[in-house]
């Protein structure tokens, strides 16, 4: 009897110990202590270091090498040392690049920012990058410094597109970040498929075929008959709808489904049912298979950064590599993504951060060079309008087409009035949850409920 009790105890202990491994990971109570201090400490740290005593290390946090490449190619005096180190004058530039997958970038950034006040000067974040979907999460806090504190004046910012400033303006109207790029999106389509199916690859003619969503569906049917999908995944068109909404994702702490988002669901369901498009996750291999002719995909929706940075332009055999794409506005103007530069409170490189901001986002000459070299769409109206009118400029990926006029037109129409700090989580979970509905496994109501549950897990303060 005694032995049995002992054995049972051991069994229970074994179960306990095995579980404790996972329990422990979830419960490490590191957070609370950090928070109490940071409120005031962040303010304290916000005081710039004394003049002339700037730090010798510039720490930059970002999620890919896009900004690194921009800085290397265009910032005067930047020398590359190795993949994660550079030099500007006698200041060492340290790149901390964490991919965005699974939120790793923000997790890393958050932990470092929360400890910012106590970190040694050379380890503090000086500059970090953010995306539109979660910009407000950082802009609304004291962890970002007003750009005015870096010596950026209204005059410097005069030529930028207004929406790029709306995204990073906090509740009190203070501008907390700047961007070198604008991200109006267009529809990029394969010229070869256009010729085969529609008999022409002229952007104007194709635009007529895709002038609104009804025309879009009709053309999709023609493409399907020829064995092509109009877009790789219905998630491709998501941003076109979500950027033309009339209400935010969350109203008074309650999850809100905008009409236009619902329209995306209905239209997409029809596309999937008719076999015009797939349901792959964005960035998955199945999604990007359409970058190659064998993928049999007609079009993608995206801004300049997608076309030149993500569509396998460097890979032999891709459509982009052969200059086989062309751009047209598509059914609706929209905006997708964008990268903003924020100065972290507590930086000891105020002058240098200010100069990087000014050179990369306000210097018309540098910005024109970025367009010419990298085909990015930069955040400078006069430069872009001049480039749009420049007949000699053309994007190799687009077969030499100058699509900047379309981008300029789109950029003026962009409204970012309905962004919220919940956009990232809501967008991800919405696309996830709707997949089951598109594939016919669950009705819309169930998919929407799953979405709400998943959002509440991510943002426990919300209700639905």
């Amino acid at each position, binding site marked *: 009897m005694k032995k049995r009790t002992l054995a049972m105890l051991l*069994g*229970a202990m074994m179960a*306990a110990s095995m579980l404790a491994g*996972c329990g422990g990971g979830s419960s490490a109570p590191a957070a609370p202590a950090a928070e109490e201090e940071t409120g005031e400490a962040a303010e304290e740290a916000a005081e710039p270091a004394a003049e002339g005593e700037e730090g010798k290390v510039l720490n930059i946090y970002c999620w890919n090498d896009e900004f690194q490449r921009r800085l290397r190619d265009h910032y005067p005096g930047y020398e590359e040392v190795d993949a994660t180190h550079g030099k500007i004058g006698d200041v060492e530039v340290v790149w901390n690049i964490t991919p965005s997958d699974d939120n790793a970038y923000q997790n890393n950034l958050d932990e470092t920012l929360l400890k910012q006040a106590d970190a040694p000067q050379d380890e503090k974040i000086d500059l970090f990058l953010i995306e539109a979907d979660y910009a407000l999460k950082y802009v609304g806090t004291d962890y970002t410094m007003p750009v005015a504190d870096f010596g950026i004046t209204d005059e410097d910012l005069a030529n930028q597109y207004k929406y790029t400033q709306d995204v990073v303006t906090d509740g009190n109207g203070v501008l907390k970040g700047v961007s070198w790029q604008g991200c109006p999106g267009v529809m990029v389509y394969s010229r070869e498929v256009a010729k085969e199916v529609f008999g022409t690859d002229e952007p104007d003619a194709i635009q007529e075929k895709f002038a609104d969503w009804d025309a879009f569906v009709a053309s999709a049917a023609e493409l399907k008959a020829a064995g092509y999908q109009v877009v790789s995944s219905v998630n491709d068109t998501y941003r076109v709808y979500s950027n033309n909404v009339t209400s935010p994702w969350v109203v008074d702490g309650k999850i809100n489904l905008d009409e236009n988002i619902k329209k995306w669901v209905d239209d997409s369901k029809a596309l999937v049912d008719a076999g015009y498009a797939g*349901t792959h996750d964005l960035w998955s291999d199945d999604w990007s298979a359409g970058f190659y002719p064998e993928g049999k995909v007609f079009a993608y929706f995206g801004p300049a950064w997608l076309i030149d940075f993500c569509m396998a332009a460097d890979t032999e055999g891709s459509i982009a590599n052969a200059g086989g794409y062309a751009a047209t506005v598509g059914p609706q103007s929209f905006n997708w993504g964008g990268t903003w530069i924020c100065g972290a409170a507590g930086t000891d490189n105020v002058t240098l951060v200010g100069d990087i901001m000014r050179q990369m986002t306000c210097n018309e000459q540098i910005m024109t060079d970025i367009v010419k070299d990298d085909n990015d769409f930069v955040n400078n109206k006069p430069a872009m309008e001049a480039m749009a009118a420049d007949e000699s400029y053309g994007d190799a990926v687009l077969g030499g087409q100058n699509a900047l006029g379309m981008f300029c037109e789109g950029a003026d129409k962009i409204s970012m009035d309905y962004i919220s700090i919940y956009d990232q*989580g809501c967008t991800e979970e919405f696309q996830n949850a709707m997949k*089951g509905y598109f*594939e016919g496994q669950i009705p819309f109501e169930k998919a929407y409920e799953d979405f709400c549950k998943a959002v509440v897990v991510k943002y426990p303060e919300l209700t639905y």
Partner: protein
Amino acid sequence: MKNRKSKAVSYNKWGYIFLIPFVAVYGIFQLVPLVSTIYNSFFENYRSGLIQIGPNFVGFKNYLTLFRNGDLLFYTRNTLIMWILGFVPQILVSLLLGAWFSDPSLRLKFDRFFKTVIYLPNLIMASAFSMLFFTLFSDKGPINSILISLGIISVPFKFMSHVWSVRGLVAFMNFIMWFGNTTILLMAGMMGIDPSLYEAAQVDGATATQIFYRITLPLLRPILLYVMITSMIGGLQMFDVPQILTNGTGDPVRKSMTLIMYLNKHLWSKNYGLGGALSVMLFIVTGILSLIVFRINTRTAEGGRHRDRT
């Protein structure tokens, strides 16, 4: 008399000294986190953006939240289904292989080689294995290409969009990864059985099947019990394989989302309160299930032993 007593005391001392490393490691890395998990489960404690909410004591509110939305049961079911799907073939194959390997009359050649080979899948990291399967079974992946070129199907089968193909793949991976380990454990158990029992049975004219069911299986019970409990605990904590295979979504329609994947979701908002409550629930469920398995097996095992003695 006196002499003998002091000797015993000094032995005891060594016993305690040898226990210190275990107790210390157990205390620091398991008992403390366990207690702090339970403690945390009574607090509202999460991060909204960069703003920390709590910790505020809320009593059993986290548990209520968990029960009210009904997800707990749903994910427990998912987890158990995928575990059973993998465990049943695993135990059957392992028993068969174990019986073959431990049977000297078969005179297997290269048995060491095969024992190594069946253990090999366990050496691969689960996440790498899962990644590999994800690529193999993607819509435009090699498996679909092969099936199409063989003419078995005409359009790619979406493995990741069907509940039972995803669950099946998860179960299959767990099976492949763990059957070697189980085989080795069962083999150790089988080789510990007194060969004279087999000889006696053979002399009495028992067939191989009879020997397996009447001698091997009953005497293997303690090991089987161990295998079952460890596998169940591992199964309830299933995480890496489905997490990587479904990219953390538990798709299709969350039917391959396990309890720990759900727990992991709460860490997005650093929600230690709800996460803690979920861990405690998982702990209780595991404890209960372990006890049930243990009870059933010990009862029959004791019966068996009595029979042996008489």
